[in-house]
């Protein structure tokens, strides 16, 4: 059914997809996690309200999030070129992915942290905890299970984006599906990629949920 070398192609695509997804997720969290924390802390009901900063951050996040991914990717091309020297391939896609995903991650982190009961934070304050101690010793550890679920959702969403990036020269399974399936009409290859993507999504999703459940002490 497949031409020679196909398996190798798919193998490379698979590795590329994983690489893009994981790398951009990590970068997106490096930016999004502090951003989400900042959103919660500077909220008007937060532990250190800074209304103007909160409003500025919120607006930037909303703007980036409202730009469709493919358009964002194209718009970012000059920036991408400046950073990684090229606008095609896996490396270039990572730049676009992390810019698109960071604000999304920030919102997910924000919503997880807001699940932490206000009373627990107050109890910590009553013991003389500083805002920084509350962030690192109360908010993050208490929200861990929810953050992990958020992580699984973020990975699978970023994986979806990475496949889309195939349309504008990104690498990975998405690019194979588009190049062989769409442009050359090899439907079987397209379906195979789709199935592979579905399987990867399932694995990450399940894994995330499992780890979250296992580490959650609320029973």
């Amino acid at each position: 059914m497949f031409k020679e070398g196909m398996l190798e192609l798919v193998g490379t695509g698979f590795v590329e997809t994983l690489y893009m997804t994981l790398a951009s997720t990590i970068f997106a969290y490096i930016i999004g996690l502090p951003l989400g924390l900042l959103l919660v802390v500077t909220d008007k009901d937060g532990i250190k309200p800074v209304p103007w900063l909160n409003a500025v951050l919120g607006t930037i996040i909303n703007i980036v999030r409202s730009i469709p991914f493919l358009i964002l990717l194209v718009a970012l091309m000059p920036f991408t070129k400046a950073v990684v020297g090229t606008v095609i391939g896996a490396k270039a896609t990572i730049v676009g992915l992390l810019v698109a995903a960071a604000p999304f991650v920030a919102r997910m982190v924000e919503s997880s942290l807001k699940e932490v009961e206000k009373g627990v934070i107050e109890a910590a304050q009553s013991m003389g905890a500083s805002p920084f101690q509350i962030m690192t010793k109360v908010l993050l550890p208490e929200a861990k299970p929810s953050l992990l679920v958020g992580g699984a959702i973020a990975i699978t969403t970023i994986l979806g984006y990475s496949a889309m990036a195939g349309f504008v020269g990104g690498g990975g399974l998405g690019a194979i599906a588009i190049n062989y399936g769409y442009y050359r009409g090899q439907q079987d290859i397209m379906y195979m990629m789709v199935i592979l993507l579905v399987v990867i999504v399932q694995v990450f999703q399940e894994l995330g949920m499992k780890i979250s459940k296992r580490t959650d002490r609320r029973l």
Partner: protein
Amino acid sequence: MEKETMIRLEGIKKRFKTKAGELEVLHGVSADIKKGEVFGIIGLSGAGKSTLVRCINLLERPTGGKVWLDGVELTALNDKNLREQRRHMGMIFQQFHLLMQKTALENVCFPLMISGVPKAQAKERAKELLELVGLADRMESYPAQLSGGQKQRVAIARALATEPKVLLCDEATSALDPNTTAGVLKLLKDINERLGITIVVITHEMSVIQEICDRVAIIDGGLIAEEGTVEEIFRNPKTKIGQELVLHEGTNREAYTGRLPYCYRLVFKGGSENEPVLGQMMIETKGVANILAANTRTIDEQAYGQMVLQFPEEKELRNTMIKYLTDRGVVVEEVEYV
């Protein structure tokens, strides 16, 4: 001997900004809480009790007035110094507010870790405290695996970790059943007596006040309605709200608040064994009194019975009856008729 002041509240006001406009919840509350005492603050729901206690450790910034802790004016401190002072005040809550992802032991270690105590030392101290509250065998349990009473004990151990001078308790037993409540109250009393920690107890239940408090302030409508020793307040509540709270639980409240004429409140030492006095009175004076409410309470190990009676209309007979009772050591006071 005049005891030293531990907490001093001076004209505490608190106004909240809400969507519906400004709402002043506390209108200028002053109080002097002495070292080593158990001070109760009681009031109906919405009276401003929680707001007041949160003003003591400044979880809520008063919009007016001053707070002192052991001679230090908290309301004048910057954030950093305030955090320092807060370590001298433990607080426990109705809903416990434990860290759900941490074991009992880690929860008790928490205040020590944030004040920079080395881990091994914190663990030692936490273990001692959990033993003190009777949870030596549940140190590795997570809050979700503990009962309400056990959770509150962890919370108490946690609040005591930094060796505070004061323990603030906001409805600490309101989420617990009567048996568990009794256990937790006993523990608090124990802590007060053994460690000499000043305790502030917020509650809407007179029974809690009677169980452990030395003095009590009744808060109503954002002001202290009356204040005194528990015995004073119980024997002779001067305000309507005081009377209502004292006779509140399980009794005919409407009768008590003075909807009927010729009502009197009787207090006698010794609880129900003194009730025959009433029968004697009715036989000897031939005056019939209608019992509207009755109960017995124990304050400082002394039983008190109290009743609300409606006396007959004829003034002379009424006076004879009252004299009969007062002659036999019963406190009789008229309930204001409105």
